[in-house]
């Protein structure tokens, strides 16, 4: 089987979309935060918190959608910490984000360990099943790729449209874009800079947590330590690659998913020639390359990283 055959196979594209799903949530969330001027490096920890909280809620009997809600709330909570530290207090977004990542990760791990002190193999839940749409699922090619994904993948794609619509077609979106470019413009029109930024960071963090929830509730059926494995950081690179546009974010996540799916398949094909780690490294190196390529022409939101204080102009 050669690369062309891989690229034409249904299972490859189905896997790409599956791998891309958590990244779509993550990139959208990071985009929403950065669009208003706040870099959210809490993403890696918020992924872990979403994964743990969602899984645990289901394990405790909340039901799958109950788990999704709990994950989003957990993300919103850690996002609120980051928002308070960086928006009204105007503290370093880099350090606060890293602090939130460490905090969210250790809260998740500690909670998991405390709830399940003596388990050797992690307990499993019944995860989201593929949405089997009659007729459509039986379509050749498209059927397996699109209509055998779980509800969370569909939710992710729906969110792309929603975030795009809100940003580009509503008064709220105009205000969010303005606050990331020049907070004074929003303040002068009587809108609250703090409110818009805190709201965006909280909502963005909830989206990020859904990416984590996908890992434990759809991609796998259990929670593992270290399962986020840099996905959050990849999202931060992809936002720049996507130049802060939801549509391009979807594209970037899909490209990344396709590449990751490809390297897994190549590994089984030509694994004898190269050590497996070369393939494992590839997605991270790809993210770095994407960042290097996009960085020079990147049109950063002008107010990114710049704190704003009321009454100090």
């Amino acid at each position, binding site marked *: 089987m050669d690369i062309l055959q891989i690229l034409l196979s249904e299972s490859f594209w189905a896997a790409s979309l599956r791998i891309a799903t958590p990244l779509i949530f993550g990139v959208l969330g990071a985009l929403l935060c950065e669009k208003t001027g706040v870099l959210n490096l809490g993403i890696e920890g918020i992924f872990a918190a979403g994964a743990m909280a969602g899984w645990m809620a289901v394990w405790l009997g909340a039901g799958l959608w109950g788990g999704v809600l709990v994950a989003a709330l957990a993300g919103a909570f850690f996002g609120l910490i980051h928002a308070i530290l960086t928006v009204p207090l105007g503290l370093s977004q880099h350090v606060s984000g890293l602090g939130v990542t460490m905090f969210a990760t250790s809260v998740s791990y500690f909670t998991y360990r405390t709830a399940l002190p003596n388990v050797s193999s992690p307990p499993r839940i019944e995860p989201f099943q593929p949405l089997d749409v009659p007729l459509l699922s039986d379509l050749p090619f498209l059927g397996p790729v699109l209509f055998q994904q779980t509800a969370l993948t569909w939710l992710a794609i729906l969110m792309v449209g929603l975030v795009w619509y809100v940003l580009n*077609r*509503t*008064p*709220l979106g*105009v*205000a969010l*874009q*303005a606050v*990331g*470019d*020049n907070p*004074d*413009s*929003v*303040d*002068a*029109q*009587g*809108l609250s800079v703090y409110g818009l930024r805190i709201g965006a960071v909280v909502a963005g963090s909830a989206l990020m947590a859904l990416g984590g929830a996908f890992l434990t509730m759809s991609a796998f059926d259990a929670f593992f330590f270290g399962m986020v494995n840099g996905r959050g950081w990849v999202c931060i690179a992809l936002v720049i690659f996507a130049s802060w546009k939801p549509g391009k974010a979807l594209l970037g996540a899909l490209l990344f998913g396709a590449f990751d799916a490809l390297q897994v398949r190549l590994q089984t094909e030509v694994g004898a020639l190269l050590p497996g780690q070369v393939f494992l490294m590839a997605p991270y190196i790809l993210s770095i390359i994407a960042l290097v390529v996009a960085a020079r022409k990147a049109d950063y*939101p*002008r107010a990114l990283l710049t704190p704003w204080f*009321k*009454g100090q*102009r």
Partner: protein
Amino acid sequence: MNGLTKRFGSVVANNAVDLTLHRGEVLALLGENGAGKTTLMNMLFGHYMPDEGTVDVADDAGALHPLMLGHPQAALAAGIGMVHQHFTLAENLNALDNIVLGSEPLRMLKRDRVGARAKIARIMEHTGLQAQLDVPVGKMSVGERQRVEILKALYRDVRILVLDEPTAVLTPQEADTLFDSIVAMTREGLSVIFISHKLREVLAFSHRIAVLRHGEKVGEIATDEADERVIARMMVGADTPETPRSELPPGAPVLQLKNLSVAGRSKRDSLEDVTLTVHQHEILGIAGVSGNGQSALAGVISGLNQPTGGTLTVDETAIANPTPRKMIHAGVGRIPEDRHHDGIVGAMSVAENMVIERLDEPGVQANGLLKRDAIRANADRLAADYDVRGPGVTARARLLSGGNIQKLILARVFEQNPKLILANQPTRGLDMGAAAEVARRLLEARTRGAGIVLISEDLDEVLSLADRIMVIHDGALIEANSRDREHIGLMMAGELT
């Protein structure tokens, strides 16, 4: 009653200021830089919270209502609009979005763009203010941005419009057009407060003048009864001293630019085929409206920008690929436009900032280690010579006032006896005393034999200091053959070449 009353209490910047504005009136708020004009207006608009005092605003029927302070929302609701000196526009959005921003409730699921366009079109027709609605503000000229700012205020149906230094970024002719629009608006019942420190325009366009000094209102006069001398004395508290200057024959050239071009990111920071020469004993004034390539010109001379064509010669030596380092070594002293951003490292001490440009010299370091005593002694001496006042030379530079920061930079620059001095907006934001000090130092350097490039948006400053004047417009430089204000104004607008 068909008037409005505003009372302000004592804050640090404003001490118990009372003001009254009548319907359909243009009130000029006059004062030096730092007199508290902008602070006062920011309190009115809710950006600042006053410590004492109240504001009352009349409704349409003329009844006075107290205004909730500290909330721009309340000010907007009461019909107060403000056009800031630093525009409050989102550059990534187009003019339409900027104008409508905040006037629709955020919970709305759609925007009403048709209705908004119709309303803006009506306002444009009434006032004669024109702007392209679908162009991102980042791509607009300064003049157009200002019109968007004013349209933004008018769109909110303001009855009181505050303009903060509206002409600072305009050519004299553009300024006249703006004031014509303002007069047209007042005929329809709009009341206008405009902040200025330019006596000329205040006398020409206002009905009444209120003068602020050191945060207090020191006088109020009907414009008909005022003349320049009276209000100047009110502003400063004394007659302004004239800076004496002597006639000096220019010497050898110290700076030559030949066909120099800079390709910036936008037209605003590009230069096209610029040729100029500055001699010893000569101040070359560069007049122009901001955003016409001044920053590119200053960038090249200070070594921050790379020319894309042409040659740069300092004191007979051609400099290829200029860097700040090379320019310093070539004997160029640079006074940057934004003194906080480019001039000092605020978190480091005054003493350290005084030697930051000559860290390689043996007087400052030996074997890579700083000579702390020498640095300290140097700072003590310069602080005394240049009258840098503040909490001491070991204190952080950001604790100094704007004027003292500028003195720190002057000390650093003039102490090296530079052959060429680039002074970019050297008096912007300074009070008259500090500004006079800058002018005196520049003239002193001229007498000593330095050549000086003075870039300024203040035409009066250029006229009073420069031996020769060139006008910068759209990245091109043209020699002004006349010192006539009207003539130079037309050149600044690009209508005379």
